[in-house]
């Protein structure tokens, strides 16, 4: 491979300035593999790197993501812009935070189902609870099992 050295840089060991039109020589990855004298002492302790999916998503096939808009669930630490992890394989119970379809809207609320009272409750004093009455359409779409948000774009 033909290299031309810049006079000023040539004195610094290890700096090569290639010609703009110099032919390129690709090195196969194998060629730069370093063969170590001793096996790594950590080899026996090797473990899989942590995967955030494992933590947040227990059942990928039934898991869906929903971004949040609004502040009515602040008390449950669910904020505007958070992305909810919703797992349909979890059976919705009293006290679960759920994604619910009510009268044509997608909502996130806490499910209240006690003593014959069915309601969707906010976690913010400025929002009243939504009592589900006869003739209202409620579909509990799935249970919110977690949330995440990326802070740096």
């Amino acid at each position: 491979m033909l290299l031309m050295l810049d006079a000023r840089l040539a004195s610094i060991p290890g700096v090569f300035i290639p010609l703009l039109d110099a032919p390129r020589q690709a090195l196969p990855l194998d060629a730069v593999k370093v063969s170590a004298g001793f096996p790594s002492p950590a080899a026996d302790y090797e473990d899989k790197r942590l995967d955030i999916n494992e933590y947040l998503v227990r059942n990928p096939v039934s898991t869906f993501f929903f971004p949040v808009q609004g502040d009515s669930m602040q008390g449950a630490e669910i904020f505007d812009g958070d992305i909810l992890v919703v797992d349909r394989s979890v059976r919705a119970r009293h006290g679960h935070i759920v994604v619910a379809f009510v009268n044509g809207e997608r909502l996130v609320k806490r499910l209240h189902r006690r003593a014959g009272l069915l309601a969707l409750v906010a976690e913010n004093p400025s929002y009243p609870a939504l009592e589900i009455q006869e003739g209202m359409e409620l579909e509990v779409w799935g249970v919110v099992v977690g949330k995440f948000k990326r802070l740096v774009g």
Partner: protein
Amino acid sequence: MKSVFALVDCNNFYASCEKLFQPKLKDRPVVVLSNNDGCVVARSAEVKALGIPMGVPWFQIQAEARRYGIVAFSSNYALYADMSNRVVEVLSSFAPSIEVYSIDESFLDLAGFERQGYASYGVEIRQRVADWLGLAVCVGIAPTKTLAKLANHCAKKGLAGSDGVCDFTILPLDALSELFGRIEVGEVWGVGRKITARLEMMGIRTVRQLRDANAETIRARFSVVQERTIRELHGESCLDLEEVVPDKQQIMSSRSFGTLVYDLADLEEAVASYIAKASEKLRAQDSLAGAIQVYVRTNVFKPEVPQYQPAITVALPVASSDTRVLAQWALRALRRIYRPGYGYHKAGVMLLNLSPKENCQLSLFDAQGGAADARSEKLMGALDDINRRYGRGVLRLAAEGVEKTWQMRRGNLSPGYTTSWDGLPVVIAG
């Protein structure tokens, strides 16, 4: 062991996927349109109830659409494919082997699961898919695939069974005969329109009549395929699960353009991107293409404009699966057939003379030989990996272009609810 199959089929699959994430569509009539928003390819239950047939051009039902408030969607293939994969994954936990028959139908091998009764197992499958994925399925259960398909038809139409599950294995023979007497022969798997017409001329109109027909006669008049159908209708299993899809003999990629295309440059972009898609499929089945066909078409439905429908096939000096090589040849071919002055409506490529990679032949004139092949294989492998991980088309040939002005018209495409960060369905905390 006695064979038992289940056919699990999603109800109104495309329309159901659209409804799943959009509460405003509950109880609304929904249709999904084909490429370029041409024809109705899927209908929700409400649309079926209105008597609107499958395949009808969208522009022909504008009056009904307005009167009943029908909502039309362009085909959101990314969404349907993801939901289909999820259904298959759920079904896989119910049977040791499964044949994915189409995007919304799978055969399950249920042999040996009779302990609790097949029907209740079917109910369990149905409930699981509904709970986990919010999609309704019908389950047909029978000793043969042909009968399972028929049982599924009965479940869907409510002719037999209950709650979307129909189990032929527990129906007594006379009940089955009575049922088959009420079903038209055209509903049998593999009996198409032409065969139906010929059978009717022989006086065979119902499934029962076909089952009871003389197998020898049918074989003589039609073929072994129809004879096998009769045996399957009798409960003798002749068709096994096809777990692995056999390799395709040719791979096609073509589309109609959203607007007419006049320039060679735009056609080149289109052809290059079809080659990219087709060669990805080619590599997925570990094959090489020996020849390429390229064609372009003007709009044949507009006879008043000048027509030109050329096609050209080029044989490659060396069989290849490298997108760059295939694109180079395809573009060269395109330039040979392109003529200015026509409004092109469609273009397509077909990869032909496919052969398995392992018995590929090196050309005498392929100067670079094996090393170049290995390098190309690595590069293409990386290309496919990246596109699989980050989404189709993230990494592509420069020749495919960026703008894609020729891309098909998809006027009312729903977001990628499950496949794109920008398409996620927003929930209101209010």
